[in-house]
């Protein structure tokens, strides 16, 4: 056999292998979005239409006012920030994410305390005290709701409580819940489905909640990876009922998709602004947060994506019809409950918070073949 050919084969195999390896690790190389010290501010959010709206409503004006260029990046994940911090080169300045994730970041020393002296008092007065956290200030409110296909369940004959979502006989059809449970495993919702009163939820009866999850499991056809995927599954009719972010469902409904949202027993949470430790633009970062919390800009954001504004004054800039659709419209908010972020985020004796512990338990629960 000619040795030339053998070398050729070997090369082919090696290069195919190398290509495959590159393809496999590709997503983990973090492409630097911007050089933060060159008059640029990097704002990291969960992307999608929200990031697009931010560009139109906030970034454009802020660039004019400050002379800085605003770059956006996504997603604001713990792991990426930790990798940047370990490498000693934090390129992110401002993050928008949920409190349990923020608590984990604080535990890893990745965030600076929020400097409230740099935010206008008039704005802070209009933001509920619960959203003034040590390292972060609330920006938008969202909730996990019953999002259903309106062809399978015409509005009015749809499941109106989590107990009904858990009831596969009265409401036949497939369910989809978040893999890893999104912000945190949906234990509150499991307890509500099991008949626990909404004011008796915390501290959560974890064992009872997981037993309730056991009953849900046979109904779940797909544990979705992202909220956009959940909306797509319901819109296409692949899934009949999903537990996902309601305002995304409203956005799809506005675009004409056969989808609707039941706000009853929704789990309300918030996304917060925070500043990274190691940011080279601390001053500008705080200026940006102050700028973004302006009532008019908050109203502009929720007109496009119907979440709830943290700044209550935003409702002054909305029409009655626009306000009605919001997660936190007077009609919707009274039927929902607040996640107790302290219960989820406070570190226990072993340094881990409940969010981390229950997510680990979720992985184990997932692995037990049901």
């Amino acid at each position, binding site marked *: 056999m000619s040795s030339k050919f053998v070398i050729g084969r070997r090369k082919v*195999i090696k290069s195919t292998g190398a290509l*495959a390896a590159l393809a496999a690790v590709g997503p983990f190389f973090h492409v630097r979005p911007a050089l933060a010290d060159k008059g640029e501010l990097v704002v990291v959010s969960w992307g999608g239409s929200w990031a697009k709206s931010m560009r139109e409503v906030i970034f454009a004006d802020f660039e004019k006012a400050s002379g800085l260029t605003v770059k956006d990046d996504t997603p604001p994940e713990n792991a990426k920030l930790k990798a940047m911090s370990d490498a000693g080169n934090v390129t992110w300045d401002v993050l928008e994410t949920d409190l349990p994730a923020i608590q984990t970041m604080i535990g890893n020393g990745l965030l600076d305390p929020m400097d409230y002296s740099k935010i206008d008092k008039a704005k802070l007065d209009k933001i509920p005290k619960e959203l003034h956290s040590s390292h972060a200030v609330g920006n938008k409110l969202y909730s996990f709701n019953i999002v259903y296909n309106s062809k399978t369940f015409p509005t009015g004959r749809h499941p109106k409580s989590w107990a009904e979502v858990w009831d596969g006989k009265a409401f036949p059809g497939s369910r989809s819940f978040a893999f890893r449970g999104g912000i945190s495993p949906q234990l509150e919702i499991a307890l509500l489905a099991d008949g626990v009163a909404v004011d008796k939820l915390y501290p959560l009866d974890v064992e009872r909640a997981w037993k309730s999850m056991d009953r849900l499991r046979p109904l779940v056809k797909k544990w979705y990876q992202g909220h956009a995927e959940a909306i797509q599954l319901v819109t296409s009719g692949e899934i009949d009922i999903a537990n996902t972010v309601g305002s995304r469902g409203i956005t799809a409904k506005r675009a004409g998709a056969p989808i609707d949202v039941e706000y009853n027993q929704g789990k309300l949470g918030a996304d917060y602004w925070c500043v990274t430790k190691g940011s080279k633009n601390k001053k500008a970062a705080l200026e940006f947060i102050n700028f973004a919390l302006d009532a008019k800009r908050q109203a502009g954001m929720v007109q496009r994506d119907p979440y709830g504004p943290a700044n209550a004054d935003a409702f002054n800039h909305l029409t009655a019809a626009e306000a009605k659709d919001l997660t936190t419209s007077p009609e919707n908010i009274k039927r929902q409950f607040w996640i107790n972020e302290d219960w989820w985020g406070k570190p226990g004796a072993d340094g881990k918070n409940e969010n981390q512990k229950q997510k680990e338990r979720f992985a184990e629960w*997932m692995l037990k073949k049901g």
Partner: protein
Amino acid sequence: MTPASAAAAPALAARYWRSRPGLLVLFCLAFFAALYLYPLAKLFVWSLYGPKLGLANYERLFTQASPFIAFRNTLDIAVIVTLVCLALGYPIAYLMTTVGPRARAAISLLVLVPFWTSILVRTYAWIVILGKNGIVNQALTDWGVVARPLSLLYNMFGVQVGLSHVLLPFMVFPLYGVMARIDMRLVRAARSLGASPARAFLHVFLPLSLPGVAAGCVLVFVLGVGAYVTPALLGGEGEVTLATLIELMIRDLLDWGFGATLGVMLLTVVGTLFVAFSAALGLDRLTGRG
């Protein structure tokens, strides 16, 4: 060896390393050390911090059930996918060796075009094909074969179908590479000596193609064990694979120590299987020592 030439050897070696091919080899070694060995070593070091230096992560690995269930799920997927790829890939590769150059180019193209297409696109295509209102279910319900749409997606079946499609080229090309080198006169000789076509194939062609089988199986298996995107999108009922579990540890829980430990476990098991495979199926013949 004379004393003189023995003395000259180091000088010769030094000259070799300074020569152009030597520099290239050095460059490759440096490249591999920096981009492969260094991260690998770092991964191993991380696995020893849990968070204090020690074997706490390994203790967890052997006392918890979840890594092993995840590993079994991973193997379930990788083994089935390897077998499916072999069953589909072998006839394709065989066909490529028997047809003319033009037909061979056409078949190569059919295998390569999906290979060049993004894995995400191919995975989403399967969602369209296998979905509740997808082409397959539409056809089956329209023809009255089934009363209600079959559950083809978001389960083990969906993952195995999707991943087999994604990895098929990694089976076909190593197989074809080996088959193209097989001297077909040997098969004809067997036929002229009275062997039936089946017998000539089984006793002459098949054994000669085994190194290709081994190479293809190893490639598909290794890629299958590490697959992340396809199981995440096409699975649904909780087919948690090792890759998914590692992702959870690294991305969500910031438990990089245990994530690294799972990575080391995966590498060790796959490495062991690779050595066993190559010993049993003669992979070394492929790399020129046979």
